[in-house]
């Protein structure tokens, strides 16, 4: 893993290396729209589909779920994939698909909450630092430097050691860990925008700091933040799964992907299916947001956009 922006290449995106055609037909309105451009980036589109799929699974999981994720059935335990249990059953005979759908609910819920906290708190801190400058800027950004100094997992573990385990605290811990990323991300472009003429004009007209930040600065820093939100979701899913795997995150019997993987290790030699599918579920969710974030960056970066 790399920096909470899962360190994708700072070069050309993952688009196919085609030779540009000499004559280009003018793009239709649909082709120039957001989705039209997304469709022409197959990898980003795949990420978008995966991310939507995972979010739907998290939101509708309990409705789609073929079985009760907590219902035990000793006679049906350790089954492989079958028509009745698409992804098999675990050591208590619980349906793996049902548990994964409910696990997505926890994983995605915690990750969305964590990145939401980090975005709100981080962006506000970054904007305030840029706007006021001076000692306010220095104090905020120094605090952010200190938070960034910790290895990610270790800081999350330390926060959970204080707060105690559980889904809510895990979200809070990951949120604290990711806050400095958003503070830095919001501050840098805000500093540039605050120097532009129209912002000076707004100031001269007597706009309040809150209005300047909300109306004039925020729209200009939104694109990189949206990209970072998507990429951070990708790593937050992995961090949440790691923490649950370590026993510090979501507590049983609530289904959680990291916890499922951890519990299934003990009975793996009898049936590896729960381990295989719960890990695959983590990978797909994280991969989806990562690819989508990459595609989003290509789309939102005007320097890469074709007319």
């Amino acid at each position, binding site marked *: 893993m*790399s920096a909470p922006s899962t360190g994708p290449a700072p*070069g*050309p995106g993952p688009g196919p290396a085609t030779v540009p055609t000499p004559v280009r037909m003018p793009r239709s309105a649909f082709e120039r729209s957001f989705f039209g451009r997304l469709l022409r980036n197959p990898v980003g589109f795949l990420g978008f589909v995966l991310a939507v799929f995972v979010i739907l699974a998290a939101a509708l999981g309990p409705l789609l779920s073929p079985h009760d994720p907590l219902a035990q059935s000793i006679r049906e335990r350790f089954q492989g994939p079958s028509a009745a249990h698409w992804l098999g059953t675990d050591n208590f005979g619980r349906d793996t698909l049902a548990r994964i759908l409910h696990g997505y609910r926890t994983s995605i819920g915690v990750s969305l909450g964590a990145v939401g906290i980090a975005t709100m708190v981080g962006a506000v801190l970054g904007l305030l630092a840029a706007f006021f400058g001076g000692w306010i800027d220095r104090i905020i950004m120094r605090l952010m430097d200190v938070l960034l100094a*910790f290895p990610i997992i270790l800081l999350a*573990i330390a926060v959970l050691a204080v707060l105690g385990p559980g889904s809510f605290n895990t979200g809070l811990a990951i949120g604290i860990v990711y806050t400095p990323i958003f503070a830095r991300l919001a501050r840098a472009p805000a500093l540039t925008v605050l120097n532009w003429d129209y912002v000076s004009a707004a100031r001269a007209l007597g706009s309040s700091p809150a209005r300047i930040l909300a109306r004039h600065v925020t729209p200009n820093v939104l694109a990189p933040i949206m990209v970072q939100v998507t990429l951070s979701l990708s790593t937050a899913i992995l961090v949440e*799964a*790691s923490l649950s795997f370590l026993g510090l995150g979501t507590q049983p019997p609530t289904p959680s992907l990291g916890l499922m993987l951890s519990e299934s290790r003990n009975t793996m030699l009898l049936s590896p299916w729960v*381990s295989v599918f719960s*890990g695959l579920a983590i*990978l797909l969710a994280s991969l989806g947001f990562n690819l989508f974030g990459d595609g989003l960056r290509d789309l939102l970066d005007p320097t890469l956009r074709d007319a």
Partner: protein
Amino acid sequence: MAQYVVRRVLDLLFVLFGVSLLIFLMVRFIPGDAVAIMLGANTDITPDRVENLRRQLGLHLPIHEQYWQWLSGVLRGDLGNSIWTGRPVTQEIGARLPVTLEITGLSLLFAVVAAVPLGVLAARARGTWGDLVVRVMAIAGLTLPSFWVGVLLLYFFSIYLPTWPAIGYVPFTQDPLGNLARLALPVVAVSLPMVAGLTRILRSSLLEVLNSDFVRTARSKGASERAVLYKHAMRNAMIPVITVIGVQVGYLLSGVVVIEQVFAIPGVGRLIIGAINERNYPLVQGVVLIVTAVFVVVNMLVDLAYAWIDPRVEYA
């Protein structure tokens, strides 16, 4: 350069000061009476023991004096004693840290050794199926949960290679081969995402460099493709790779903390999880402090090395 080094060292000291303050305050943030929680699992709690521990942790002093006492202890290499074993925290960590650092170092080595040929292959074979395979693997590998890979490796080795010593740890000095054999699986599991990340960056930076003017000049003066690649292009293409290595060391360290749990390796990861479960806060504080300090120093060294390698880095 000298000025840059001094500035970086001052930054580092400031960050470490902030880190120490946060770690010190950590125990004070625990909701409720920390001492009662720490002793919670014990059956023979007497008011005497509570008072003793309170004094041992310095909790009877005003908070700034507590911090001063704790910090001066840390600077003298005294991180307090483990609540359960009574052994000095530094001793407990000293026994575990080399294990974690060994896995991290081996993983870094493995990632670079695997990523360089893959990146070169993908860049040279641009547009072919070989390039496509490497690129797809590099994208998918980036988000591979290393603990999952570890669990699967453990499963396959216990079924198909049951004689392989897949679990546990032997010190290198005791049994070098046994040490490397036991660390092979965790190292592969932890470094795969980094292999993917480095391959991807090397490919794109190599492609960019191979399109630049000086490479065209080298080709036109008749240099062999090999010489162009290794003498001219590679050195420039490695610069972004080195930056990413610096960033990723932290992720590697995080991965190692988790993978130790999978392979029952006695490193700091297992130490801190155990310490949290038994509410051994001095030990938790000590691990977080030491590992973060190591991490911060390594990051600074990478930055300095980077400035030294690439003359274009500004020391501003």
